[in-house]
């Protein structure tokens, strides 16, 4: 097996040569921001290229399309990707949630069927958890799945209902789906089941939803008597909640196995400082305004705290009192910070904050305006900041549940 060192050198050389430069349109910073076919096709080709070169799924078994190397190899490749700040990996739900779930708990057949397409980006995955009436209260999901036998004598489930805010729903071939198989279960969680549902079948339709930025990014998915094979069920009937919680652990990085790369680019927390130094407010450099100076310093201190938290998390004597505090606080802290960054940037821009993407007089083609609006994707998606506060309050501080 190639040494990690040598693999890293090869990766470095490869990304140095192949990282796309001067892309003529704005690239999405996160997998939730893929809004146009142009962006989608570009990123799909890019993921495929990275995979074919051996830098995605390097540690997944060869039988399932992986590189057969170790986690250390993939981690090294991912670090190189960060170094070159390459475009994101597109197939986030596949790479980060569905893939590791299938790898850990799927049958041999499922692994051979699904995993190669996840890596090559031939098969795009989406996540069907949220519903129009049930979002934060995910356990209350109501999409109905009824077991039946079809005319050929095959077991299947018939789906009726709707999922919403489905990222890349219009591009997806498969959906990890949380549905209700038992309406008489002793509690709401026990009635749920988890499926690897095909999307391109009769009875499944997606409509694009326009985001606050004016672009498209997610969909609503309607299921009308959609028949899916019974063997798409993951685990047993009634295990849905448990499986869904497991996928959230992959999502939050509490469990490993992800195919690697990154699906959200990490903007430098201090990036806004560059803007602050250039921006003009009321005809003067923004940083001559004492209020702006103070806010900028507060922002730098917060960035510094976030980075120091990450450092401290690695030093066990300094986290021993409440070991889960920093990991459980990090989503809340990071996403709110990103939102505040956008807010600060717009205040720094003075009059130019009034422009939007596409205006030639705008600063950096409306980058900060759009970033600010897009920042809410992360303070809402994946469990809202309010839900994160509940989680920290209840699981770290031991406060009573809010219900």
């Amino acid at each position, binding site marked *: 097996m190639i040494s990690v060192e040598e693999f890293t050198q090869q990766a470095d050389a490869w990304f140095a040569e192949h990282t796309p430069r001067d892309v003529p349109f704005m690239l999405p910073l996160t997998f939730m921001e893929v809004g146009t076919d142009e962006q989608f096709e570009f990123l799909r080709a890019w993921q495929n290229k990275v995979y074919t070169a051996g830098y995605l799924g390097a540690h997944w078994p060869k039988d399932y399309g992986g590189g057969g190397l170790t986690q250390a190899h993939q981690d090294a490749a991912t670090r190189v990707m960060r170094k070159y700040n390459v475009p994101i990996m597109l197939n986030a739900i596949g790479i980060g949630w569905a893939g590791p779930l299938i790898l850990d708990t799927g049958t041999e057949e499922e692994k051979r069927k699904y995993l190669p397409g996840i890596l090559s980006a031939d098969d795009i995955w989406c996540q069907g958890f949220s519903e129009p009436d049930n979002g934060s209260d995910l356990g209350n999901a109501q999409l109905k799945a009824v077991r039946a036998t079809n005319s050929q004598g095959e077991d299947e489930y018939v789906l009726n209902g709707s999922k919403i805010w489905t990222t890349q729903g219009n591009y997806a071939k498969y959906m990890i789906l949380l549905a209700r198989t038992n309406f008489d279960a002793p509690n709401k969680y026990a009635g749920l089941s988890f499926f690897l549902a095909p999307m391109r079948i009769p009875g499944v339709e997606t409509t694009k939803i326009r985001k606050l930025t004016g672009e498209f990014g997610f969909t609503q998915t309607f299921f009308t008597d959609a028949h899916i094979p019974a063997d798409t069920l993951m685990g047993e009937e009634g295990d849905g909640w448990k499986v869904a919680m497991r996928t959230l652990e992959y999502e939050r990085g509490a469990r490993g196995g992800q195919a690697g790369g990154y699906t959200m680019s990490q903007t430098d927390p*201090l990036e806004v*400082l560059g803007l*602050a*130094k250039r921006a003009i407010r009321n005809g003067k450099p923004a*940083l001559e305004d004492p209020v702006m*100076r*103070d806010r*900028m*310093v*507060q922002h*730098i*201190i*917060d960035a*510094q*705290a*976030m*980075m*120091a*938290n*990450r*450092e*401290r998390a690695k*030093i066990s*004597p*300094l986290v021993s009192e409440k070991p889960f*505090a*920093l990991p459980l*606080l990090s989503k*809340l*802290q990071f996403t709110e910070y990103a939102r505040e960054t956008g807010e600060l940037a717009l205040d720094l821009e003075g009059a130019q904050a009034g422009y939007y993407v596409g205006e030639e007089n705008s600063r950096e083609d409306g980058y900060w305006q759009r970033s600010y609006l897009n920042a809410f994707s992360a303070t809402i998606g994946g469990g809202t900041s*309010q839900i994160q*506060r*509940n989680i*920290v*309050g209840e699981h*770290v*501080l*031991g*406060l*009573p*549940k*809010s*219900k």
Partner: protein
Amino acid sequence: MTRHLARIALTEMQAELRDQAMRFCADKSPISRVRALIQDEHGFDLAVWTEMAELGWMGIAIPEAQGGLGLELADLVPVAEAMGKHLMSSPFLSTNLAAQAILTGGTDAQKAEWLSKLASGTIATVALFEPSGAWDLDAVEGKTKTFAMDLGAAEIVITTVRHEGETRLALIPRKRIEARRETIIDETKRSYAFDVPRFDDSDLMPADLTVATLERIELVANLLQAAELSGAAAACVDYTVDYLKTRKQFGKLIGAYQALKHPTVDAFLDAENARSLLYAAATHCEKQGDGEIAVRMANAKAEGALSYAADRSIQFHGGFGFTYDCDAQLYRRKAMFAASQFGDAAFHRARLAELLL
């Protein structure tokens, strides 16, 4: 730019010291003792202080040649943090400031006479404030000094004086001074005012070291204050959480109400941030330039964290929060007093703006 200042290093010794100090302070400074000492003239327990000195804590940042342990400034942080966490009052900060001032800017004779004594528990302090609250060199009249912490128990004070048209630092024996106790908002601490007495040339510290010495005092004060406040912020959040888990209204524990739960989580996040910045500051405090940045960040965050945690703590205790018996006031007063000394968070941010922007 400042990214490297987020790195945290913790030696095994610091980890052990932190454990030891946390246990010691928990044992010696239960809240009943904290409150009893509010009535004490000097505001601290001399027997406990003697034990701390016997543990070697007063010599931590004094070189071995001068009778100390010869460790680093960073090694004072675990002790100060533990004291803050248990609201333990003592002349630890005052004495360390004086020791560092002598180390940086004392004459050989002053070093020889005092450092080994301070390392073994003799109490000392610094007095920089003028009655106007100013303490920069130009503002010094050198007639009357205020906010001389722990002066009542100290043997020496290092203070700014006027000498031949210059502001200088002088080391003056306490017995020449008539101290008047000041009433301050943090009742666990002791502050004094005094008129600067006559002094001799031999009391003066070298003129060329005045600026460096004042900078040293400020750095150490900010670092140890950040430690004390960050320890207190963690304790204050715990104190609030305890109440939220026991007090019931409308048939349920009040901690179930998000109007209380969510701000408490925010206070907790602030306190966690303050802790991380504190350990980062301890790691970098001795670096030229970077040290000041890391330390001011830590102190600004710690002061903000304790102020918010304590402010919400008062509110979340309801009517009881308005009483003298509720500990929330102890935390709030601590934050208020700390903000008045060596600069509040906004002051530190203004300095940081000069350094960073």
